[in-house]
């Protein structure tokens, strides 16, 4: 067991995966010599050589597309996109090929590949460095979309992603890369993809969130707890496919539902969660299912980005309305 933050855990986990399986190769912009702009891949090229961990030219479509080719020819590529805002050039590959190769070939060819990227805002960065892709990626059949909220989960989910025979997009909340440390076991373990986790059980309302926002939601839940409102908090962990069972079970118990996310509200991931709660637990609902989300704007530059984020107090205010409806 070692105390690790999120980024060192990613690094450790990639190391473990490469050590276990020669087919795992890691690449992207600045991933090799420099070890990644966030240091996620530091030391890997030294340890495994530049055939297994290497820098690429600046071309995201090519990064994802060559990963497809490698996966077709027996490797298990783990590609890094430097920031989620730079994955758009690769959307054609992701939508048209990554997500479809298995279905297109009626199961004959498949793509055991992972695309990792820092995700979301909160790091006071330039434009395009703070994007939330939950909806774009969640809406693509054939992908699994995963995001951890803690170092412990990150290791288990990332190992599971690399071992998965389907393509996985692994969204790393960059805001909490170095926010806190946690005990992470040295030995390997996986956390099944597609399973949400109840991170705080409660009886008065169900709140679903994921990634960096889980921590704000937990703070908000604490505020409410002090007021006598007992929220159940679920960390979605896999954005797609969604673990409906865990959510519906909770909503059937609490009768109230809220989802909290960073992405813009309209056509956002919260809409999907509200729809599935309607489909699966409508008659249990004692209050309107509610979403707290980013405004329908481009996430602002650092001077104003604090307005965009929901902090514990704003989340608490929203949850209170749901609880007291």
């Amino acid at each position, binding site marked *: 067991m070692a105390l690790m933050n999120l980024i060192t855990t990613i690094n450790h986990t990639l190391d473990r995966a490469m050590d276990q399986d020669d087919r795992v190769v890691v690449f992207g912009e600045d991933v090799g010599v420099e070890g990644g702009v966030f240091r996620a891949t530091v030391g890997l090229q030294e340890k495994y050589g530049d055939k297994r961990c290497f820098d690429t030219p600046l071309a995201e479509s090519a990064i994802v597309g060559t990963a497809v080719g490698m996966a077709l020819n027996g490797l298990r590529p783990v590609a890094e996109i430097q920031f989620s805002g730079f994955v758009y050039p690769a959307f054609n590959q992701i939508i*048209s090929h990554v997500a479809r190769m298995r279905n297109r070939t009626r199961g004959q060819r498949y793509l055991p590949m992972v695309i990792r990227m820092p995700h979301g805002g909160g790091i006071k960065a330039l434009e395009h460095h703070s994007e939330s892709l939950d909806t774009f990626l969640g809406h693509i059949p054939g992908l699994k979309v995963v995001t951890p909220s803690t170092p412990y989960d990150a290791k288990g989910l990332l190992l599971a992603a690399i071992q998965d025979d389907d393509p996985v997009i692994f969204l790393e909340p960059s805001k909490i890369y170095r926010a806190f440390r946690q005990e992470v076991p040295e030995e390997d373990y996986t956390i099944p993809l597609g399973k949400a986790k109840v991170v705080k059980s409660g009886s008065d309302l169900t709140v679903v969130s994921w990634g960096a926002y889980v921590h704000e939601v937990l703070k908000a839940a604490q505020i409410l707890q002090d007021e006598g409102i007992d929220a159940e908090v679920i960390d979605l962990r896999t954005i797609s496919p969604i673990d409906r069972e865990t959510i519906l079970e909770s909503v059937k118990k609490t009768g109230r539902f809220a989802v909290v996310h960073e992405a813009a509200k309209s056509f956002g991931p919260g809409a999907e969660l509200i729809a599935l709660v309607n489909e699966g637990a409508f008659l249990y609902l004692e209050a309107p299912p509610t979403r707290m989300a980013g405004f329908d704007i481009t996430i602002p530059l650092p001077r104003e980005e604090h307005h965009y984020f929901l902090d514990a107090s704003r989340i608490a205010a929203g949850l209170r309305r749901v609880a007291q409806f």
Partner: protein
Amino acid sequence: MLIHERIELIRDYGAPGGPMLQIMDEHGAVRRPELVPSLAEEKWLELYKAMVLTRAADDKALQLQRQGRMLTYAPNTGQEAAQVGPAAAMEKNDWLVPAFRELGAWLYRGIPLKTVYLYWYGNEYGSHFPEGVRVLPIAVPIGTQLHHAVGIAMASSIKGEKDVTVAYIGDGGTSTGDFNEALNFAGVFNAPVVFIVQNNQYAISVPRKKQTKAESLAQKAVAAGIPGIVVDGNDLMAMYAATKEAVERARRGEGPTLIEAYTYRLGAHTTSDDPTKYREDSEVEQWKLRDPLRRMKAYLIDQGLWSDEQDAGLYEQYGAYALEVFRQVEAEGEPKVADLFQYTYKEMPAHLREQYEEYVRYLEGKVE
């Protein structure tokens, strides 16, 4: 036209506006005997037959489409040499990465005609190939396939394997960002890959001249610092020879090559297209004289290996075979409904299983 670096065989070719690599002329006469690949004579007959099969299968598909039995179909007529030549120059374990107009190459590399017809018949099983056939499915989004080719080739070198990847694209495809990114990656990683541009002079209605100001498409290799060459795409010998050289170069670790196969689409873009809207018949007539089958036939007859009578019979025989294959396709019946749902993921997730089951119930009339 400028060629950045030339593969050995063709040191004399590629001057600006100058000749391209041609071994056999339009009449089937060998103009560069010293460049004729050392293949057994029967091999040339075999390759010729592969081109005739391609032509017959193509014509049959068009005919069936006109009868309303086949869906949209993209014909290959005129481009057979640019397809069969490279396919024949590959080794058994080499990979072929198609664009979408390479019938001759697919058949030669082992995709059954039935599978090809299934594809154009609108069935996903048209992308399911026999075990061991190292060919990717058609890539409809132009340009995207080249990244796959480079990735496959990089994987071969990472694994220390000697397989080479041959990838196709059209003249229109050379304008995509993906084309350039892929060539650049191939150069940087010295990937064992050969890019073949079938320059058939049109991207649907857009003529080659409006696609780029570059004098040749081969010169696009210069941007990636890799060799490029223009080859007479209607000359089977030249296509074979150039690809062979490029493939072996790649296998020896000498990196990627771009081959522009200078050819012509004699037919329509697809069966939905009417080429008279954008090109002159006279142009088409000119190109018919350069038909790759015609000149190879002349060569074989000249060599005493073939005759006009044998030839007519062959085309008929292949046509009949193609029809028979298509009948099998028609006889296949509907694919299973389960197929719609079960290949999106390795295991069907809960929400998809529910959609599937609900739909089956609907089909069974259990829901109304």
